């Protein structure tokens, strides 16, 4: 048998943001920053980016359906093709950035990295970064794309903060928190941020601890005037594996299109290790994590980001998966 060396997958950052948010400024910054990484960029809008030594490729967005119109089974055909061509080169790059158009739906982009078996062996999704124009986002709340770009994000750059007051900024940040309780939020001017802060996040790595924004949990009353929001469940107790499986299965089947992302740490009955999971629409990925520490409280923590979560009765149906108290020995 030949022992082939373990090939490393290349991390991919997806950069989204509504038109004029400062996305291109951020991209230029990343490309010119002295980080020593060789970066390839796939763009859907051919901008004025043209940097020596960096590979910039322009493609047209193409959505491929895999299962008769189910939104969870849509992928980006253009990305699949370009990535498999790009990965043939010997002078491979260290990081791939995909800049989407302001109107792109982030879901098919993200799903591409989980659904396509060939893409999955070559690259891995690092994080979704969304740039938000702090001044003009108010005009875009009606646009589904603008909302979904925030909801799917791992990192949100509140950009152009010099153009708004502190009070406006606070209100905006609260509103964004209500929509997405797991993203890291940075306030920037001119998209000024250190590249190291946003590349190499490993946001889709299951073993990366779930971080729910403490402010989100501490708030006593969330304002839910949006249809898109976050919901966190924190419950002590052990879970019945079979009940949990049935619950998640049913939830994703019936509500998958409305659940954008979910992440969690679970305490399964009879297991000494934590169980961690994440999902994008109907795609679900879970595995056993490290053992629970002796001084750690075995708490189940789940976060959902989606549309009309209130109507899903998540808290009660989740509690029904706990092992009944009197059954515990």
């Amino acid at each position: 048998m030949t022992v082939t060396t373990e090939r490393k997958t290349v991390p991919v950052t997806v950069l989204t943001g509504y038109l004029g948010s400062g996305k291109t400024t951020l991209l230029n910054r990343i490309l010119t920053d002295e980080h020593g990484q060789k970066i390839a960029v796939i763009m859907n809008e051919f901008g004025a980016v043209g940097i020596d030594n960096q590979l910039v490729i322009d493609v047209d967005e193409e959505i491929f359906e895999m299962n008769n119109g189910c939104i969870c089974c849509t992928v980006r055909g253009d990305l699949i093709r370009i990535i498999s061509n790009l990965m043939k080169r010997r002078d491979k790059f260290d990081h791939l950035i995909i800049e989407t158009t302001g109107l792109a739906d982030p879901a098919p982009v993200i799903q591409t990295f989980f659904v396509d078996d060939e893409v999955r062996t070559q690259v891995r999704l690092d994080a979704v970064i969304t740039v938000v124009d702090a001044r003009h986002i108010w005009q875009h709340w009606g646009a589904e794309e603008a909302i979904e770009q925030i909801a799917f994000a791992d990192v949100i750059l509140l950009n152009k903060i010099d153009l708004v007051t502190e009070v406006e900024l606070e209100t905006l940040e609260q509103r964004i928190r209500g929509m997405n309780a797991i993203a890291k939020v940075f306030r920037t001017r001119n998209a000024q941020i250190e590249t190291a802060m946003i590349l190499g996040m490993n946001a889709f790595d299951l073993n990366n601890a779930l971080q729910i924004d403490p402010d989100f949990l501490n708030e006593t009353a969330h304002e839910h005037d949006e249809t898109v929001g976050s919901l966190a469940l924190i419950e002590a107790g052990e879970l019945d594996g079979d009940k949990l499986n049935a619950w998640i299965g049913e939830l994703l089947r019936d509500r998958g299109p409305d659940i954008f992302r979910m992440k969690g740490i679970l305490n399964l009955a009879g297991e000494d290790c934590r169980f961690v999971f994440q999902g994008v629409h109907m795609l679900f990925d879970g595995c056993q994590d490290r053992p629970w520490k002796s001084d750690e409280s075995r708490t189940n923590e789940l976060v959902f980001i989606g549309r009309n979560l209130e109507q899903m009765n998540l808290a009660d149906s989740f509690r029904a998966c706990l092992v009944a108290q009197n059954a515990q020995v």
Partner: protein
Amino acid sequence: MASKTKDRDLLDLQWYTALSDYITAIVWSPDGTWFAVSSAAGEVVQYAANTKTVTVLQVAQGKSIDALAVSGDGVFLAAGGQAGAVLVWRLDGHIPTQIVALGHSHIWIDRLQWNPHHPELAYGFGRHVRVWSATQQSEIAELNFRSSSVLDLAWHPKGDRLSVSGNQNIKTWWRHAWEDTPVVQQLGGASEAIAWSPDGQYLASGNNDRSVMVWQDGNPFPWQMRGFPGKVRQLAWSDPRRSISTPLLASICGEGVVVWTKDRDPSIGWNAQVLDFHQRSVRAIAFQPQSLQLASVADDGWLCLWRKANRLTQLFEGAPTGFSCLAWQPSGKTLAAGGGQGEVLLWTQTTTGQGFG
């Protein structure tokens, strides 16, 4: 080596060379006297089969060449790639001459094929297919696939029609009436690869929804083969044989090769056999001409020969980071394979009784 194997069928490593990057394509001339190789660095090199005389048609450019094709008469070689250009060389003189460079914009060209009977080159260009005639030195048709970018294209063995695949369907245009509406075959997903059987009886499609579909010519209702663990990336038909009524269809998906045999009972359809050996993604498969022997190469660095497309009889190494492509000489006597670091290797049939001890 297994004693049942006939010695005359065994292959031996004959020759080795290297280009500067991942080998993207290898093609043989129809008479088997030369072959051409392209790389991800943009090289296009022609080699004489006997003397191994090298003719560099294009040096490394930094932009990849992704597809090569030789015309049915062996006179023309075409190449396309990342630069968005299609290059055509005339190879029947003393020195190869580049006769055209069809320049385009930033659209990556990775699918091109000559009509088997006429010097007409079809190539995928975004959502379109262009057909260029070497005789007229001009474009003779532009076909709008519409549904998506062109993912694959295949001429019927008779050369009378061209099938084009992409998202949701396959469209087939007749050569005598390019402007007519194409025949459409619907799919649930996107067709990544299509292939006409050499007898022209069957059109097969490998799809991203983990299925293979096969249409018998003239029948609108396809067979559907499911159960693949991932998308089906390449297909290969065996040449017609007297011993079997329908050619075998080989398909690749992930690390697996699946060979389909049509059952005599029409109600059963096609039977699958999984050829299980490769540990990483299979990159290419090809039947030996006039034979049922199948060759497969994979990212795991192995080249496998499967006797009658079912029993593993020979294994070769030679590309430590994995093989990328392969091509049989039309006589079936020599097999060429390319590797991920620019390796080009040739294996030739050993003469009776020699080679293995």
